[in-house]
């Protein structure tokens, strides 16, 4: 299941003012994240895994405090062992005006996310070289096994599996019936 959350709409609902398009202040960020989590809960009621597009296209700017609340804490909550659901995120519409704040909080917390751009999806943030290469291979190949990724990278299957499992814990790769599917990759079968 693919869901879509327009962060700008959530912001306007949260601060109760149609004029605001800036994601600023920690309290606003916490309120926006709370609303996103409620929506994710509603999506989760349908059962199973949910991939959600977090869309920044209509957000004018975001500051560090808000990025910490909306992006970092959202990622951390759903990567936690006690996460409220099996949620994956694809970030859309993130431009240069958002990137300073988002990259700063990813660095601060050692996080990474899948980012949709004009030329496809890429992972950004803090990743090991093995994780980055494994994600790229999984994204390029579609639904794969660890052996396929290992073959693509010229690596040991155990090493590829380790990297892919790490990416699964970080919500950057989904586990689908024993195979791996990169978040943002085209094929999400078997749900």
């Amino acid at each position: 299941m693919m869901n879509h959350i327009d962060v700008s709409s959530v912001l306007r609902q949260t601060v109760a003012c149609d004029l605001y398009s800036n994601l600023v202040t920690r309290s606003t960020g916490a309120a926006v994240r709370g609303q996103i989590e409620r929506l994710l809960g509603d999506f989760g009621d349908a059962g199973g895994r949910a991939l959600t597009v977090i869309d920044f296209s209509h957000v004018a700017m975001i500051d560090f405090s808000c990025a910490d609340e909306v992006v970092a804490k959202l990622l951390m909550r759903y990567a936690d062992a006690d996460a409220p659901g099996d949620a994956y995120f694809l970030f859309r519409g993130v431009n240069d005006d958002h990137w300073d704040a988002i990259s700063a909080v990813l660095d601060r917390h050692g996080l990474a996310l899948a980012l949709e751009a004009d030329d496809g999806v890429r992972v950004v943030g803090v990743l090991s070289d093995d994780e980055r290469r494994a994600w790229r291979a999984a994204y390029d190949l579609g639904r794969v096994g660890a052996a396929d990724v290992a073959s693509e990278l010229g690596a040991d299957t155990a090493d590829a599996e380790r990297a892919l499992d790490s990416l699964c814990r970080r919500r950057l790769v989904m586990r689908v019936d024993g195979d791996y599917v990169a978040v943002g990759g085209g094929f999400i079968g078997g749900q």
Partner: protein
Amino acid sequence: MTNVIAVPPSLDDYSFEQVLEQLAPLPADAKILIDARHARWASPYGLTALLTLAQTRAERPALAVPELDETASYWARAAFFQHAEALYDLHGAYPKRRDTGESNVLLEITPIAKSDDIHTIVGQVQERLKRIIQGELKLETKAVLGFTMTLSEVCQNIIEHAGQGGWVAVQSYRWTKRLGRRVVVIAVCDAGLGFRRSLESAPGHLPSARWDDAAALEEAVIRGVSRFRDRGRGQGLAGARNYVGRWQGKLSVRSGTARIAIVPPWDDDVPLAEGLPQFPGAQVQVIIPEHAPAAASQGSGR
């Protein structure tokens, strides 16, 4: 007896210390008259700090307004008198209505008490900032965004840490005396807890052997320490520090008896000043100068 505190002709973050030195020996309930009659110019820091000063007094202070019409008119445009009327007994004539003509005031003095205030402030200044920073300071588009983020973060510092409201003002002007270039300046002042007391309120806080206002400023501004144990906290001032570094700007933060500064090549300020007259709360100033390829070789002229 009323104690007269003389305001220097040029009131900025440096000369405001002269005001505080005169206040230092006086108890909080002493009657004071802030004599600004001979003031000719005031930076956003000077004006917001004057409002903050009034909030630190147990006895309502008096203020003699600038005699020069041009100065009084500017202070009115910056909304100083609008707010000062509630804090001071004002003596002398001053414009009751604000001139709404073209002005260097990007954001008139604005109270900050809640998160929504920051949304309004950021929304108000964005377009004007774009015109000033790109058009007059000749900086890249990215500088506009960083400035807005910095403005948001330093304002949030009040809401998160001061324990009471504060003031913000943003102004652009040609800084002939010290730099010879245009600058855009943010001043944010409050009379709240201050950095030392804020950090002391952290759960499990253990003061170091040398724990004072200067140490607290180093913790907060240089090391990004916050009173909250959340690892995500403390990024605001760190972001502001990075921003001023990228655009050869200056960040200074005064709290209690100390002031810490990120000093650019064009300035000769000290990175850390200690033993200043006690002043409650925190006073933050951010200065971003016009782009100049030879900026690093210019002296301060101070």
